[in-house]
């Protein structure tokens, strides 16, 4: 039985190698076709891969980084981008106390009601309110931003994933690469060149960025610059630092359970490995009296 399995494995790998060669060959001819004026695929440049505290099997968020990221979000991004799936209470994950969260929430006014007189009224937000967005609705957001809608940021780090391409997408399984969205956001934030390269026409009101996922330019102007925010923990606020911190914050916002998930996964897989080991020896014992 074992030999049958090995034989199969060898054959499968032979087949995979053969098909990958075929694919590699055709990919080459495709890029040739592109040069002859085929369709252009975005993004023009693949995201720059960064090292993140939350990558890998034991990855987890760095609370200090998330707090810095929140500051960038609050002072820069939140001017245009909403975060509608998050509640202020979620900020507890970042290591803030209940009082700190109450204070943070109270900076925003939300509409509540109707009260006993049947009227809607404004009140300071409470920890269990959702993050208040900068605009009343999408139409207002579009009209305030030259016809472009700033996307909601609560799932942004999961909602952007430029194609990895063959054969990288296969290696990704084994390297546990799941930070495509974070790499993308970081690259986009720091990837605005001083000027668009020669020969590239950029529409009025758009800004050239080779990392943008659905075109060569986007409506958002370069949002970050050195020393744009002042960090409370004394970290030097370079543009790269801010980009990295706010990206980590967005990764947390999109996947707040990552720490628990990876920890749980480690225990589950450890349990299954031990269980599989026990079953393997049980099976060996049970089958020892039967040639098969």
């Amino acid at each position, binding site marked *: 039985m074992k030999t049958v399995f090995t034989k199969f494995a060898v054959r499968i790998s032979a087949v*995979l190698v053969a098909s990958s060669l075929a694919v590699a060959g055709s990919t080459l001819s495709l890029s040739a076709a592109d040069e002859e004026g085929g369709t252009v695929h975005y993004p023009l440049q693949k995201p720059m891969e960064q090292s993140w505290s939350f990558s890998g099997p034991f990855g987890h968020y760095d609370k200090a980084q998330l707090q810095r990221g929140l500051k960038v979000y609050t002072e820069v991004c939140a001017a245009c981008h909403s975060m509608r799936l998050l509640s202020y209470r979620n900020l507890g994950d970042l290591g803030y106390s209940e009082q700190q969260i109450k204070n943070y929430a109270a900076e925003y006014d939300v509409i509540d009601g109707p009260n006993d007189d049947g009227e809607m009224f404004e009140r300071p937000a409470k920890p269990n309110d959702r993050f208040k967005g900068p605009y009343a609705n999408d139409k207002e957001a579009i009209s305030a931003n030259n016809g472009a809608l700033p996307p909601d940021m609560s799932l942004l780090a999961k909602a*952007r994933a430029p194609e990895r391409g063959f054969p990288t997408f296969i290696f990704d399984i084994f390297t546990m690469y799941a930070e495509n969205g974070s790499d993308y956001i970081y690259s986009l934030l720091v990837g605005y060149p001083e000027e668009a390269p020669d020969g590239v026409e950029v529409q009025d009101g758009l800004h050239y960025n080779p990392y943008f996922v659905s075109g060569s330019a986007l409506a958002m102007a370069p949002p970050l610059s050195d020393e744009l925010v002042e960090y409370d923990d004394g970290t030097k606020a370079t543009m790269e630092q801010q980009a990295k911190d706010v990206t980590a914050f967005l990764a947390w916002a999109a996947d707040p359970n990552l720490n628990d998930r990876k920890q749980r996964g480690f225990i589950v897989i450890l349990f299954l490995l031990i269980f599989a080991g026990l079953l393997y020896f049980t099976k060996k014992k049970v089958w020892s009296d039967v040639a098969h």
Partner: protein
Amino acid sequence: MSGHSTYNPTTGFGKFMDSRLPIARLIHDSFVSFPVPRNLNNFYTFGGILMVMLVSQIVTGIVIAMHFTPESTMAFDSVHLLRRDVSYGNTLQSWHAVGASMFFVAVYIHIFRGLYYGSYKAPREVLWILGVVIYLLMMATAFMGYVLPWGQMSYWGAQVITNFFSAIPLVGDTVREYLLGGYAVGNATLNRFFSLHYLLPFMIAGIVILHVWTLHVTGQTNPTGVEVKSKQDVIPFTPYATVKDAFAMVVFMIVMCYFVFFMPDYLGHADNYIMANPLKTPAHIVPEWYFLPFYAVLRAVDFNIGIPFTEIVLIDSKLGGVLAMFGAIAVLFFVPWLDTSDVRSANYRPMYKIFFWLFVANAVFLGYLGSRPAEGIWIPLMKASTFAYFFHFLVIMPLLGWFEKPLPRPASITDAVLAKAGNGGSSHIEGATAEPQSKG
């Protein structure tokens, strides 16, 4: 079920029930004393794995349905609130979504195993056909389930797939409207897809019972393809197959948990984390990976079929593509009759064995093509690969029966096992054919 029942109730309650509702006897005969060939390899464990996957999908699905809101403005948020705010909701939702993919991983291995060992040949044609029906129902269920989270890919996937039905001549548009509950994908579509997504798994479960029933009437095949001939050839299901299936299942679970806990988004699309927007079409609308080969077949037909030298179009490219796509699945129903060889297992079919692996490679490649945009070099490759897919079933399978020279087969399962174990068992070989089979 095959053979005499060996169930022997010992307790008073057991005897009472056995003469009224012998359910314990049924279970004993099906999963304890049921005889299985002694030489099954690990590829035969996927039937059991699939059954566990079905139960796992139903159980997680029922719990998710408790938190899901099938309404077009609330569905997306309800899924994400489940992931964020419900205890273990994150794991639950990933388990169900990754589970769908792993269900298809298992079913593809199961189908390829059947094709390799000729498991569809007489007397197991009905067993095979029921399997194809289950596969079809799985596809429908998975597609509708993917629509429910109401992301961009859900919405536009539904738009593309329901559009297939409008290709049907005369009644197409009406059928599509009934399917959608309106003129476009909307709240009514979401509601009926939710209802059907809840219904279909139970229909699958019903057909699985028939599938297992037919299996227990005909008995299992085995890697030699030689039918069970004596008591020596078989062993009781419990403990032998039970422990073997359990081990394989746990190994399969390890792979699944790797994805659930460490790469939950790897098998999905980033675009589905954007709420459905009828006004904004994604750059590339791509189905889930398990539909990709069929998506490539669909797009391979980009030409009208008509009467040559006239303007008359009999089948336009849209209908042609849809027919080819459904044909790619429908052809599976006829495999028991398309394969004309009397030899079951590919182990004894030197030519079929090569064509089988070419077919597997082509199917994988077809899947890759399905993920590519329909432009440039990809279109001719899609056509070639689609042609190879149908050529395998419609030409190679029927012809091999005539031209192939099968290898000598062992006289019995026991013979094969003993010969391999080198125990000096009988090396007598029966039915060794030195010439091609003569047909007609």
